[in-house]
């Protein structure tokens, strides 16, 4: 599978070279969007999350009149993306949209592609800033922390005890979000008390048992916030089969497929994550804007991203998708990742 997809990419490269050779009599300075080819390189193929982002990329390409080609490895290993990046560079595609499996391992390959004139946009997972033109960030730490507090506050009526079920105790992302949530709780939610933070190590079983312990040691607990997809599913699973169902709110960051069961049975009212379709859409719009020369990736550049409106490039070439997306009973059926 891996081999055949490399082969397929290789064949495409040969074809593209042929095409380039044919078209070499043109002046090559078109700059229009009519013949823009964008290569979409997710972490791995067959991953529903990236299938959703590619769908968004194709939607954007359709609107722009560009072509999106998705290639990628079967497994998300650090250097598996390198041959695909090399192929894209040889093809001379206008832009490469990539979710990096490793912040540095693919750096050299990306640099080569950029030297060959390909614009590089990372999304979902960034490389070191010097290897790409833009990073389309799915959510900011502040946005994630705020959204989770907003959700739990809504669900418990603005007051009561809550607890956090995190990933491992040294998880950088989670710790940053938790610190922000603690600050925000103290300043904006005086009636909500965070009684405990426990760590489920992103392991179903551990998270499950920690949820049980939380509920037992805090009989007045009204809500659990789990800023990790494994944790929220485990907490929801525990609560859905216990006497706490309907009494203790569970929210946090989860994926629709994991949470569908619990949203449908009423254990979970709403939870957040970004929308990968929008993410792919925005990344492709940004790539097209770069390829067309509308922006260069400098801080302060602005570009129009179709249905999502106007975006401004922030520090370090980052473009922020926006607030996390809230999934609930009304929209969960529209997503499959």
């Amino acid at each position: 599978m891996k081999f055949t997809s490399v082969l397929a990419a290789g064949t495409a490269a040969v074809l593209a070279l042929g095409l380039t050779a044919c078209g070499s009599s043109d002046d090559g300075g078109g700059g229009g969007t009519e013949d823009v080819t964008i290569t979409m390189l997710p972490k791995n193929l067959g991953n529903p999350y990236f299938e959703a982002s590619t769908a968004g990329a194709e939607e954007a390409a359709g609107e722009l009149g560009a072509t999106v080609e998705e290639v990628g490895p079967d497994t998300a290993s650090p250097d598996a993306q390198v041959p695909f990046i090399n192929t894209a560079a040889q093809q001379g595609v206008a832009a490469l949209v990539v979710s990096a499996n490793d912040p540095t391992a693919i750096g050299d390959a990306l640099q080569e592609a950029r030297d060959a004139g390909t614009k590089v946009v990372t999304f979902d997972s960034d490389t070191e800033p010097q290897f790409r033109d833009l990073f389309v960030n799915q959510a900011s730490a502040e946005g994630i922390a705020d959204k989770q507090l907003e959700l739990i506050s809504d669900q418990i009526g603005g007051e009561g005890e809550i607890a956090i079920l995190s990933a491992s105790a040294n998880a950088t992302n989670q710790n940053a979000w938790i610190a922000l949530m603690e600050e925000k709780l103290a300043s904006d939610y005086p009636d909500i008390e965070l009684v405990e933070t426990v760590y489920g190590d992103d392991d179903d079983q551990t998270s499950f048992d920690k949820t049980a312990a939380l509920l037992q040691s805090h009989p007045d607990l009204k809500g659990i916030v789990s800023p990790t997809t494994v944790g929220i599913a485990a907490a929801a699973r525990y609560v859905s089969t216990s006497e706490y169902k309907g009494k203790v709110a569970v929210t946090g960051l989860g994926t629709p497929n994991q949470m569908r069961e619990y949203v449908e049975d009423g254990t979970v009212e709403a939870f957040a994550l970004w929308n990968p379709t929008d993410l792919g859409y925005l990344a492709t719009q940004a790539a097209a804007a770069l390829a067309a020369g509308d922006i260069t990736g400098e801080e302060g550049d602005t570009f129009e991203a179709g249905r999502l409106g106007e975006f401004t490039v922030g520090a370090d070439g980052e473009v922020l998708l926006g607030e996390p997306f809230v999934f609930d009973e009304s929209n969960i059926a529209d997503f499959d990742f």
Partner: protein
Amino acid sequence: MRTVLRRREAGIALVLLVVIGVTTAIQPGFLLSGGGWRDLLLTPSILVVLAVGQAVVVITRNVDLSVGSVLGLTAYLTGRLFIDVPDLPIVVVALVAVITGTLLGLVNGAIVALARVPALVITLGTLYVYRGVTLTWAGSDRIDAGDMPRTFLALGTRQVLGIPVLTIVAAIVLAAVGYYMYTSRGGRQLYAIGSDPDAATLQGLPVRRRLLWAFALNGALAGLAGVMFAARYGTVSSGAGTGMELQVVGAVVVGGVAIFGGSGTVAGAALGAMLLLTINRALPVVGIPDFWQRAVVGALIIGAIALDRVLANRRSRRLAAERDAGPPGSAGPPDGSRPEQTPPGAGPSDREEATA
């Protein structure tokens, strides 16, 4: 001799009761609420099944480190079958998982018994091989609760007369294997092999066949545990069961099964599993900080091994004294109640022969 062994299991049971008692005194819901009672019985059931299987292997002076990976593979297989063959009855799915586990166990057993390579190394290898298979197969895919039938998931928490179904499954496994190990010729031979593999071979015991059998049984139980895992947790990723092998070995050791084989009971291992997980659940309830909980569990394992050592030394000293004092041949276990077909030296009391 048997009273000492009995005391060992009684000791674990006593510690377990103390843990439950103290925790309940601090937080009555730990035992007295519906959910507390259910969790008390339900949480250890998967580990009990694994510990029973592991105990059988450890009694033969081997170890199977691949059980966590076998559990992961069969749990994912269970979910996959529900997705790919939606009409398959739950019993058939469970059976396929158990058979798969048995085959994986047989691979372990075959290499250990036929190639005579230490089980520690072989099963460390298959730990990675089996996990690799799961990773390749599952990738970043995951089985979610919504992918499995509700009736199957309900088994994970359903109770019959106040006792969870999974606990009943674990109890049946424990009773069946315990009965086999204690009464049958094959079971006693496993003890004999663990006490002194060379002596067992010289005696003409079918060592290879018994070892194969022990690993196959352990694999089958790991497969069953995989099904239970899927039903209980409702989510199976490629990492399911990672690190569980150490928990299982910990449970077996805490339960009084000597890591060098030949002594201990599956009931002890099951109690060890219950104790470990109950302590795990009790520590946060009584307010011990998250980070200390592992240290407490580790201390418990070291304590159990130290106790094991002290008891074994004391026994061998006493037996040596008896041997020096009494007429020749009187050092054997005064245990006439056991069935006649039991080969000499194959009792639960033959530990001292290995350590003397």
